[in-house]
């Protein structure tokens, strides 16, 4: 017999016999009506858990991880407001159900059953996944990746304070809201979680507002691995900046009282708190997990004896809110009701085609108020003495700086965050003077943690900001990459386009940096950014393109809610000359602020039809260097700058190379998994031209004199071109 049946039968028998587990009597401010509400939410949650197992048996449900044992979370929900954005642990069905009772017109049981049934009518994910979540209830859906929602919860909490001074057009949260974020006891150990606790504490420690309530649902175990006794309490009791609260989640009166105290602390002090809630886990980890295979049966049964629903019936009866007999009736009526609703929900349609599944990868565009840009006076003020040089050719880093200045002047909701972006102005000076121009609130010098930087950006985006986070070096994206891949990119997908986290992530990277160089600062792999559905990867090769592309990226984020990565080639930041010392050929004038390069438009230099060199970034620069030698050997050549590395602008590439007899792909990223693989495949499919590629080797980049040895050079490009066109 499955544990869910045993727990169910125990409940029926013991509630009828008034055979209750021992526990504290009810006390505190929980009103009797609210206590009954909590119990009703708990019964609904329990019935949904049992029904999800039944649905799976019938092949009509697809996911059974449940909330049984964690029903006390309904009491936490009632201690909060439905406008407090909630990032939920997967065991928080009771929280969501209780919150639904706070917002008129919700049909929570039907909605959750549609999600269990993976029906396309599921109001949160549109049938893509069983997730908790609701736009109306301010519950963004979460992925199953443990703890990955904690960094963005920190970001969302930070965004409440930020919006108070500078409210974005698309802000969602009221000024007095708090953010709620829950997780399991095993999850609390995850480095992502630890980073978020640390970031929250670090922020609050300096008295910056961070209204965030963490709730650790401590059932003492993560799948089969026990949390050492006392570990959570002892790890979190004395964290700087983080106030610790504790309650027994089996006691809804105590839970409500403590959650109210914790929420009041967070709301009035605008500081983070950690509520440690004791829960139990009934029926093992998920559907197929049998706890008795790794725990002694007596231990499993001892936990089951403390079924929170039995504690609730006891306390409701003791407090006079509801006689036990009526509580039993509610349990049975609810179970019956949920079964009936499930019978309807399972008849609803499912997604069928790839196009239907994919329809939510890209969120819908959002209407934005038109802006006329800054006044001449505001511009003059911001640019200061830079304005005198604005008509002179400049290096790329300067042009990016000016572009950022104009964008921040035009869109007050743009904020930047990163390591050393503010006071220092970035390690390459790209964000210099922006703090003086726009203040520290919009130029955030973060702590040294890439997951926290991206989490801050994601969270702020969820409250209407347009974050421009910066990762100092491409190599350091990798330990935080899941925040893009698993979180930012999937949010529209799992919310059917209802939630989004648009941003422009600036990353300095790629090779060819003389002297400094080396893998640590010149990583040359973009593979992790190229297979993420919905993510746009842009890479300029010169200052004017950088300015125009960055403006387009800002528009894509602001108006189309897109997730954009803007990869800035470090070696080109200071590049002045192309062929000879002081020729100044790689500097450009600042393009007028309304000039942009539309998403997907490629660059073209020349129109020779013997050879098209298709490249990007440093490769474009090197190809220009190689061009005289190639043309002088009689090969009529054009150079195509791909500019947009993901998704590849395939049609534009095909059009730009039309009629060319040969195509040489020059790719500074690695041979394996590099951009050239995709370009080769595309031209192979789309073009009759003879193809060849020149790529970096499958190596890390060395520092010192061999800094460029593994990558294409002007000489190797010339040679490859001549060989191809022989």
């Amino acid at each position: 017999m499955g544990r869910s049946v045993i727990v169910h039968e125990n409940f029926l028998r013991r509630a009828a016999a008034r055979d209750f587990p021992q526990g504290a009597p009810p006390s505190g401010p929980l009103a009797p009506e609210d206590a009954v509400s909590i119990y009703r939410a708990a019964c609904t949650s329990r019935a949904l858990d049992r029904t999800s197992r039944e649905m799976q048996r019938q092949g009509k449900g697809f996911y059974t991880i449940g909330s049984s044992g964690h029903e006390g979370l309904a009491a936490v929900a009632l201690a909060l407001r439905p406008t407090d954005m909630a990032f939920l642990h997967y065991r928080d069905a009771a929280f969501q159900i209780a919150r639904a009772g706070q917002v008129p017109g919700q049909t929570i049981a039907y909605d959750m059953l549609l999600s269990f049934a993976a029906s396309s009518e599921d109001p949160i994910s549109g049938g893509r996944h069983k997730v908790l979540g609701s736009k109306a209830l301010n519950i963004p859906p979460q992925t199953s990746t443990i703890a990955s929602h904690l960094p963005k919860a920190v970001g969302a909490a930070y965004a409440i304070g930020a919006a108070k001074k500078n409210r974005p057009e698309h802000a969602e949260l009221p000024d007095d809201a708090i953010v709620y974020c829950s997780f399991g006891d095993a999850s609390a150990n995850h480095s992502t979680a630890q980073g978020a606790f640390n970031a929250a504490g670090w922020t609050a420690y300096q008295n910056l507002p961070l209204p965030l309530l963490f709730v650790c649902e401590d059932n003492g175990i993560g799948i089969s691995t026990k949390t050492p006794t006392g570990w959570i309490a002892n790890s979190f009791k004395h964290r700087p900046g983080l106030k610790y609260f504790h309650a027994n989640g089996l006691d809804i009166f105590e839970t409500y009282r403590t959650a109210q105290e914790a929420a009041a602390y967070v709301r009035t002090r605008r500081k983070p708190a950690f509520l440690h809630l004791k829960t139990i886990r009934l029926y093992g980890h998920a559907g197929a997990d049998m706890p008795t295979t790794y725990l002694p049966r007596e231990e499993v049964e001892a936990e089951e004896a403390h079924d929170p629903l039995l504690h609730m019936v006891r306390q409701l009866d003791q407090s006079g809110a509801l006689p036990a007999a009526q509580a039993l009736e509610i349990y049975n009526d609810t179970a019956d009701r949920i079964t009936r609703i499930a019978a309807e929900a399972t008849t609803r349609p499912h997604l069928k085609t790839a196009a239907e599944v994919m329809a939510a990868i890209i969120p819908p565009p959002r209407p934005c108020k038109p802006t006329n840009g800054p006044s001449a006076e505001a511009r003059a003020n911001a640019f200061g003495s830079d304005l005198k040089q604005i008509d002179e050719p400049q290096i790329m880093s300067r042009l990016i700086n000016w572009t950022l200045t104009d964008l921040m002047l035009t869109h007050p909701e743009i904020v930047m965050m990163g390591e050393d972006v503010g006071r220092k102005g970035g390690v390459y000076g790209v964000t210099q003077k922006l703090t003086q121009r726009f203040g520290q609130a919009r130029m955030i010098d973060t702590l040294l943690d890439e997951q926290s930087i991206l989490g801050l950006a994601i969270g702020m985006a969820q409250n209407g900001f347009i974050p421009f986070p910066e990762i100092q070096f491409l190599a350091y994206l990798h330990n935080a990459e899941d925040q893009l891949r698993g979180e930012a990119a999937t949010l529209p997908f799992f919310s059917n386009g209802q939630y989004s986290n648009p941003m422009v992530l600036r990353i300095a990277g790629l090779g060819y940096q003389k002297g400094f160089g080396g893998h640590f600062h010149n990583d040359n792999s973009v593979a992790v950014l190229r297979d993420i559905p919905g993510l746009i990867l842009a890479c300029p090769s010169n200052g004017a393109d950088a300015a125009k592309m960055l403006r387009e990226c800002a528009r894509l984020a602001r108006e189309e809610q897109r997730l954009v990565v803007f990869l800035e080639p470090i070696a080109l930041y200071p590049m002045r000359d192309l062929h000879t010392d002081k020729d100044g050929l790689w500097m450009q004038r600042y393009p007028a602020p309304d000039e942009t390069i539309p998403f997907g438009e490629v660059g073209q230099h020349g129109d020779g039809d013997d050879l098209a060199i298709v490249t990007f970034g440093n490769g474009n620069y090197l190809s220009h260097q190689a061009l005289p030698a190639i043309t002088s050997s009689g090969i009529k050549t054009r150079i195509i700058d791909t500019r947009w590395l993901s998704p590849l602008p395939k049609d534009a590439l095909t059009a730009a190379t039309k009629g060319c007899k040969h195509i040489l792909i020059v790719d500074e990223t690695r041979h394996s998994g590099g951009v050239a693989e995709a370009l080769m495949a595309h031209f192979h499919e789309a073009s009759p031209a003879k193809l060849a590629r020149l790529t970096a080797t499958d190596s890390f980049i060395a520092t010192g004199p061999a800094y460029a040895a593994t990558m294409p050079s002007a000489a190797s490009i010339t040679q490859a071109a001549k060989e191809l066109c022989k």
Partner: protein
Amino acid sequence: MRKAVLICPGRGTYTKTELGSLARFPDRNLLAHFDARRTALNQETLTALDSAATYSVSKHTRGDNASALIYACTLGDSLALQVVEIVAVTGNSMGWYSALACAGALTPQNGFEVVNTMGTLMQQSLIGGQIIHPFLDENWRPNPARRAELLAIAAEITTRPDHTLTLSIDLGGMLVLAGNEAGLKAFEAAVPPEQGRFPMRLANHAAFHTALQAPVAAQGRAALPETLFQQPQKPLIDGRGQIWWPGSTRKAALYDYTLGHQVTEPYDFTAAIRSAAREFAPDLFIIAGPGTTLGGAVAQSLILSHWQGMASKADFQTRQTANPLLVSMGLPEQRALVT
């Protein structure tokens, strides 16, 4: 036992053919109590109104008469129900007061006090009027664009000087709009006539469920104490689709909603039916009380809620013929199914 949601109708349902309905009222003492209360208030008794030789629009549709009449007919029907288990109660507009009583949140006597007081107050002030217009075509196919269009017309009208016109009731495939005379007239001029009847003014109706009723709401709160209210015995679904559950209803909140939001904000009957269907999945929707006009709105609301895959009038009719989903107690043959 089949599970059913009970639906209490609103104003405008007691028409000529309903004369004599109270003959069916199952509790003579209760009816005598209502009549005594009416006499004490110098109002014509329900029995007298119901047994009048002829139906008088000017008399029978007045708020101070119609409300209590409809309430009594509805309550009587709910008391007469057999062979079904009522799993939730809801209502349309004034039917909310009946629903409160049918669900046990008001005793039958207190329900009478609330409905008669509010009906009388509405009649005394008679602020503004209502007009009804469909946004579904005759096949009842969902058409959200047309609904948005009509609301946009109203939104534009209400910006004109001395014009008010706002949404009053979302009534399945119809919108009931309410406002002042100028607003109502402007709407009549703005939309092409449809189905030979629409846009249709509702005689003797005020601008219910709009801000214009704020004085009536205030008078209602002054006249009716919170102590009249109690925990519902059955789940109760309001004009936002919100469910008030037995045991977890805060009386003060129910009172505030009933004599506040419910009076001055739009009433979403469609949402009420959506919640009834989706959260209770009943075998039957039973419309109590006089008249048969609410059936269409219930069916349309179910279509708009994608209930059981119904997407048109034909779908509903097929379902209804095969295995009735909707029972109007005003129709004798359907009434027989549940009494």
